[in-house]
C-alpha cells in the first residue's frame, strides 16, 4: 500500500512537478524505524507521555460534560426565584406558590392523581473524604417521594429509600465510594440532627451522582426553612413542557422563572473551566516540547541517511516522494507514540474523581471518560506533533545535494 504523494506535488520545485513520481514504499520507513530501535522508542515514549497527558485532561472534561449533560429529563421544569441562577441562592419559592403551580395546565399527574410538583431544598454539608485528603462540600437534596418518582433514571441499589418524617438519608453510589461515614447504618450530622444512611442509589452518571437525598419535611422542622430553594414540575408532554415553562415565568403572581431541567444542568458545565484552562496550557507546552524532540529525531534520521537519500534520488525517486516518505516516517513515529499513550491511559478510563461545582461550591463526582471523540482528538494531536516535527527535516532531506551526499 504505497502512499500517494500527489497531494504534496505543490510543495515540490517546478522541475519536479512535471515528472511522474513513484512513492517510496511504506515498509522502507517501518524498517528504518525498526533499525534504530532505541531512538524510535524514546521519541515515541516522549510523544506518548504528551498524548497521555492530553487524554487525561480531555477525559476529565468529557466526564464532567457527561455528568451535567445527561442530567435532567426534558419533561421536567426547574423553577427558581427570578434572577437566581442556582438552587443554592438565597430566597427561593414560597410555600404558598406551590398550590398555584400545581393548578397550572399541563402539569402531569401520577397514578394516584397527585400533580407532579416537588418542592425541594438544597443544603451543602461537609464530609471527610475516604482517602483522608480533607473535607469537602457535598450537595444534599431534600425532597418528597414524589420528587424521587419524577426522576426515573435514579435507581435504588442497596437498602431502601428514606421514610418521610424520619431523620434518614440515601446517598449516591459515588458519594458512598468517596466519603467516609456514608455506609448504610452510619449517621451524619446535618444541622442539629443526626441523620441515618438507609440506602444507596445509582445516579447513572448524572449530576445526582454527587448528591445525598433526604426528607424535606424533616428538614423544614430542623432548620425552620420557610421556602423551597427550587421546585421541580413535570409536564405531560414536550410541547406542554415548553408552554409550562413560559407560563411559570410569565405568571405575575409568582415572580419565578422556569427552565427545562436539562438546560439548567448543562449550564453548570462551566465548573470544568479551571481544568480546561490549566489543561490547555499544559497540553500546549508539552506538545511544543515533544514536537522539538520529534524534529530532533527526524533530523538525525535524515543526517544518518544522507547517502541513502542521494541513492534513492539517483535511482529516480523524486523530491516530493522523499519529502512524503520522511513526513510519513515522522507520522508513524507519532502514531506509535499515540498508541502507547492511549494504552497508558486505558487503565484510568472510568476512574471516579471529583471537582468543585462552580455554581454550588460543592463536590461534583464524575468519571474519566475516554470517549471515541477523546481518543480521535488525541490521535489528531499526535499527528499534528508528527507533522510539525517531520516537515522541516523532510524538506531538508528532499533538497539535499545529491553529489555531495554521495561523496560524504
Amino acid at each position, binding site marked *: 500500500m504505497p502512499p500517494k504523494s500527489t497531494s504534496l506535488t505543490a510543495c515540490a520545485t517546478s522541475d519536479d512537478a512535471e515528472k511522474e513520481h513513484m512513492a517510496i514504499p511504506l515498509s522502507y520507513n517501518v524498517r528504518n524505524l525498526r533499525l534504530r530501535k*532505541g*531512538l524510535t522508542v*524514546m*521519541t515515541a*515514549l*516522549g510523544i506518548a*507521555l*504528551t498524548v*497521555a*497527558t492530553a487524554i*487525561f485532561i480531555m477525559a476529565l472534561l468529557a466526564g464532567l460534560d457527561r455528568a451535567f449533560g445527561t442530567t435532567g429529563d426534558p419533561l421536567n421544569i426547574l423553577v427558581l*426565584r*427570578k*434572577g*437566581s*441562577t*442556582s438552587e*443554592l*441562592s*438565597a*430566597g427561593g419559592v414560597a410555600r404558598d406558590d406551590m398550590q398555584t403551580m400545581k393548578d397550572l395546565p399541563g402539569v402531569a399527574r401520577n397514578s394516584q392523581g397527585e400533580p407532579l410538583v416537588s418542592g425541594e431544598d438544597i*443544603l*451543602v*454539608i*461537609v464530609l471527610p473524604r475516604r482517602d483522608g*485528603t*480533607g*473535607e*469537602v*462540600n457535598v450537595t444534599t437534596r431534600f425532597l418528597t417521594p414524589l420528587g424521587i418518582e419524577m426522576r426515573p433514571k435514579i435507581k435504588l441499589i442497596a437498602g431502601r429509600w428514606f421514610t418521610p418524617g424520619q431523620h434518614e438519608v440515601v446517598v449516591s453510589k459515588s458519594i458512598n465510594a468517596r466519603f467516609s461515614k456514608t455506609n448504610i447504618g452510619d449517621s451524619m*450530622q*446535618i*444541622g*442539629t440532627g443526626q441523620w441515618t444512611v438507609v440506602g444507596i442509589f445509582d445516579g447513572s452518571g448524572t449530576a445526582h451522582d454527587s448528591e445525598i437525598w433526604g426528607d424535606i419535611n424533616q428538614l423544614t422542622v430542623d432548620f425552620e426553612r420557610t421556602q423551597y430553594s427550587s421546585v421541580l414540575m413535570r409536564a405531560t408532554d414536550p410541547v406542554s413542557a415548553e408552554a409550562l415553562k413560559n407560563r411559570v415565568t410569565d405568571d405575575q403572581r409568582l415572580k419565578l422563572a422556569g427552565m427545562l431541567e436539562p438546560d439548567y444542568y448543562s449550564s453548570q458545565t*462551566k465548573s470544568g*473551566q*479551571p481544568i480546561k*484552562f*490549566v489543561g490547555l*496550557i*499544559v497540553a500546549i*507546552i*508539552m506538545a*511544543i*516540547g*515533544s514536537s*522539538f*524532540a520529534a*524534529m*530532533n*529525531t527526524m*533530523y*538525525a534520521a535524515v543526517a544518518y541517511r544522507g547517502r541513502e537519500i542521494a541513492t534513492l534520488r539517483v535511482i529516480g525517486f523524486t523530491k516530493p516522494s522523499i519529502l512524503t516518505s520522511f513526513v510519513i516516517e515522522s507520522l508513524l513515529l507519532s502514531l506509535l507514540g499515540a498508541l502507547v499513550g492511549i494504552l497508558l491511559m486505558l487503565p484510568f478510563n472510568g476512574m471516579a*474523581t*471529583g*471537582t*468543585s461545582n462552580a455554581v454550588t*461550591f*460543592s*463536590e461534583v463526582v464524575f468519571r474519566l471518560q475516554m470517549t471515541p471523540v477523546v481518543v480521535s482528538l488525541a490521535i489528531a494531536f499526535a499527528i499534528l506533533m508528527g507533522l510539525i516535527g517531520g516537515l522541516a527535516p523532510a524538506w531538508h532531506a528532499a533538497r539535499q545535494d545529491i553529489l555531495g551526499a554521495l561523496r560524504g
Partner: protein
Amino acid sequence: MTLTRFVTKNAFRNKRRSLLTVLSIGFSLLLLTLMMTIWRSFYIDKGTTQSAQRLLVRHKVSLVFNLPASYREKIRSIPGVTQVVNQQWFGGQYKDDKPENFFAQFGTDPQELLKVYPEFQIPAEQVEAWQHDRAGAIVDAELARKFGWKIGDRLNIKGVIFPLNLELTIRGIFTAPTTTQTIYFNKTYLDEGYAEAKGNEGVFAVLVDSPQDVARVASAIDEQFRNAPKPTKTETERAFQLDFVQMLGNVKAFILSICSAVVFAILLVSANTMAMSIRERTREVALLKTLGFTRNSILGLFVGEAVSLALVGGIVGTLIAYVVVFGMQKQGGFMTGMAVTLPTVIVALLVSALVGFLSAFIPSYHASQVNIVDGLRHIG
C-alpha cells in the same frame, strides 16, 4: 584549548540539534516551573505576617450557612482578639457572567475592615468618604486598573444569590500586597435592601494580638459556640484558602503526575540527544584515547556536555516561566499573587542538571569503554 572550552564547543557543534534539544528541555522545564510555582503558592507560602495573625470564622457545617451577627461581639470578648469584622459574600455579576468579569464582593463594616486588614494601603480621606456613604464601596487597585474605574464611578452589581442589585459608588481604591480581586461595600446597604440579610453574616475575620496566640484563640472561639444552634469552624486565613484549593479536587496528585510526566519526558529527550551525539563520535573517542585521555576524563567530557545543554534548557525554561507568570499575574484571576521565586528556579535548574547527568551517563560510559582499535574502525 581548556576542557571547559572543549565541552562548550562540542555541545554546540551540531547547532540545530543543540538548539532543538535546548528548546525541548526548555519547554518542559517551563511547565515544571509553572507547576512548582502553583504548588508553592498553594502549599508552602505562609502569606504575610498579618495573614498569619488572622482567623476566619464560619459556620461549622458549610460556608453557605450564615452565622448570627450577634456572634461578632461574643467573639470580640474572647481574650487575644483585637478586632473582628463581618464579611458577607454577595456573589453578584458585574456586566455579565463571563469569568473574566468575575471578582469577589463582600458586604462589611467600613468602620473596622481596615483595622483587621492593616496591610491594605488606602488614603485616610477615602476611607472616611466610604464610611459616610452607605452605598459606597472600596475596590482593589488591580481591579480598578483592569476595568478603568475611578473614584466617583458608579458600579452596578446584579444580585444572583441575593434578590437585589447593588448600585454602588466607588469611594476609595486600596492597594494590597498581593492583589485581592475584591470590592468591599457597606453591609448595611444589603440589610436595607433585603430584610432577610439583616442579622446574618457569612464569615467573621478576626485579628489576633500575636501569632503565638492564634491556635488558642481559634479553639476558644469554636469552644464558645460548640453547643449553640450554629456552631463555628475557625481557621487561619491560609487554611481557609486551602479549603478552596481542596475543593478543586485532588490538586496535589494532579500536579505531581504532570510533573513526573514532564521530568520523564525531558529525561527521554535529553538521553536521546546524547545517545545520538555520542554514537556519532565513537571514532573521536578512540582518537582522544590515543592522545592519552583517560576513560574518566572522557566520561567527564560527555557528562559535562549533557549537563551544560540541559542547564541552558533549564535557564531558558525558567526565564519563560518568569515572564509567563508575571504576565498572567497582571491578568488577575487564577495566578493572582504567584511569582517564580529563587528557590523554585534553583530546584528547576537542579532537576535539569540531574536529568542531563543521568541521560549522558549510560551512553558515555559505553563510549568510554570502547576499545581503541574498534573505535577507530567504527563507521559513523
